[in-house]
């Protein structure tokens, strides 16, 4: 019995969709706009996330060791740092490597190189570059460094300096910037999605308002409420599905263009992002389209069914 009902409801919804061509086209277009907003926001979030990650990657804390510190001592200190939960990774640069880097960086600076050559020993110490999992965690890493000095056997400190305090201002500013950008992005997303949902809901309400006399007739003929409401919900779901597919197709050329022209600016090739997340995006669009269509129709028919 219930299967017969469901079969009839689906068939009736499909027939209505086919017969009221103009209403269907208009509704699908409105749905497509809403889903395009959703897709654009997915891309916006991805781009924002990607750029923030790139910036985060450029921040680190460097520990400069004295020239007396031996390699095993530094490496054991590195090990203890890597055990911290806040630390993403620690990279070691030996004194010789640091000197080589310095020479490379100042290769054109003849005077500096000459002065360096005058020195009997390597004046540079080894360094450890520490990357935190999250920029907000540099503070606690710096605290750890302050409390757990690396000492040699005689008890003298091996650490020459930690550049956290010099970077602190940049790090703090970056943290508030990232937090702000994420909050703003979320807010904008929320507002745009809400507006699109309201527009879509109103479109469905209008199509059902046009059919209000039909609903009255169906009630007089003795149709149960779910039997009247069902086809409208099926129609809404069809709008959602067709609009999802349409949106996916529209974004294919859009991302190809963005991928070939805007990748440098955005720091992310959106076409590659789109293709590698094609399935997830389709699921998100189908899910929101179907939900929006069904729920809108459910709510919009309610006022005509409870009279």
């Amino acid at each position, binding site marked *: *019995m219930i299967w*017969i009902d469901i079969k*009839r409801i689906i068939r009736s919804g499909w*027939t*209505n969709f086919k*017969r*009221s061509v103009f209403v269907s086209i208009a509704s699908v277009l409105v749905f497509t706009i809403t889903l395009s907003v959703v897709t654009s926001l997915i891309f916006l979030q991805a781009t924002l996330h990607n750029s923030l990650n790139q910036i985060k990657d450029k921040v680190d804390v460097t520990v400069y060791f004295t020239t007396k510190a031996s390699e095993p001592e530094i490496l054991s200190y590195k090990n203890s740092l890597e055990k911290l939960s806040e630390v993403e990774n620690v990279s070691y640069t030996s004194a010789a490597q640091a000197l080589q880097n310095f020479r490379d960086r100042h290769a054109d600076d003849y005077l500096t190189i000459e002065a360096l050559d005058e020195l009997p020993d390597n004046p540079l110490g080894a360094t450890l570059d520490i990357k935190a999992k999250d920029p907000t965690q540099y503070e606690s890493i710096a605290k750890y460094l302050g409390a757990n000095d690396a000492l040699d056997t005689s008890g003298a400190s091996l650490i020459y300096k930690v550049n956290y305090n010099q970077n602190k201002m940049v790090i703090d500013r970056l943290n508030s910037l990232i937090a702000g950008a994420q909050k703003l992005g979320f807010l904008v997303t929320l507002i745009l999605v809400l507006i699109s949902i309201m527009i879509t809901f109103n479109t469905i309400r209008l199509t059902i308002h046009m059919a209000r*006399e*039909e609903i*009255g*007739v*169906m*009630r*007089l*003929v*003795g*149709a*149960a*409420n779910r*039997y009247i409401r069902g086809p409208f919900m099926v129609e809404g779901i069809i709008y959602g599905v067709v609009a999802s597919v349409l949106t996916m197709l529209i974004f294919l050329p859009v991302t190809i263009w963005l991928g070939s022209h805007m990748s440098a600016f955005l720091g992310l090739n959106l076409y590659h992002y789109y293709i590698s997340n094609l399935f997830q995006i389709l699921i998100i669009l189908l899910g929101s389209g179907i939900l929006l269509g069904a729920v809108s129709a459910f709510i919009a028919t309610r006022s005509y*069914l*409870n009279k």
Partner: protein
Amino acid sequence: MINFQKVSKVYPKGSVSLEDVTLSINPGEFVSVVGHSGAGKTTLIKLILAEERATSGEVFFENLNVGRLHNGELTKLRRKIGVVFQDFKLLPNKTAYENIAFAMESAGKTDEEIISSVPHVLELVDLAEKHANFPHQMSGGEKQRLAIARAIINEPELIIADEPTGNLDPVNTYEVVQILKKINDLGTTVILTTHNKGVVDSIGKRVITLEKGKLVRDSKEGKYVL
């Protein structure tokens, strides 16, 4: 079958549509309800269908108090009543066949029953060839015959025809009345509202006359007198 007990209906702003109406209709009767426009004929019908609720008094269909039914019970009540309207009230996006099939689907009939019954009833009202037409592709008489076909398809106990001939020419009017008489002859109760004197006189059965919301005359084998 139908009982009105001291029923009054007052619309907001105080316009009285029915005043203290008491009447009863037995199974198998053919009752014509006559009166000028605004006499309360349509309100009487709407009260039976629970489209409107009485301001005071009670309306019974068999032993159901119509004014107190919930949504689900209302649906069941309406399946026992076939209704024909002056403005047909067909579903515009459905073909003649689908309009009738919809009424059967609503009543929970199987596909087999629908496939065997719908062509039969379309034949009965002489619309077999128009089964794939939409209402807007049919004439007034054809639409009204389709509405009658829809009203009788579920074999209701009561047929209510509210001014069914109001929009029709004399030939179509005659046909519709003949179909209603035939339905009544087969045992179904029929309530017909009209202000067409010729129609009432040609039927020659019980006539209830309303005037300004009051029941002023109830005569067996009556004529249209105002």
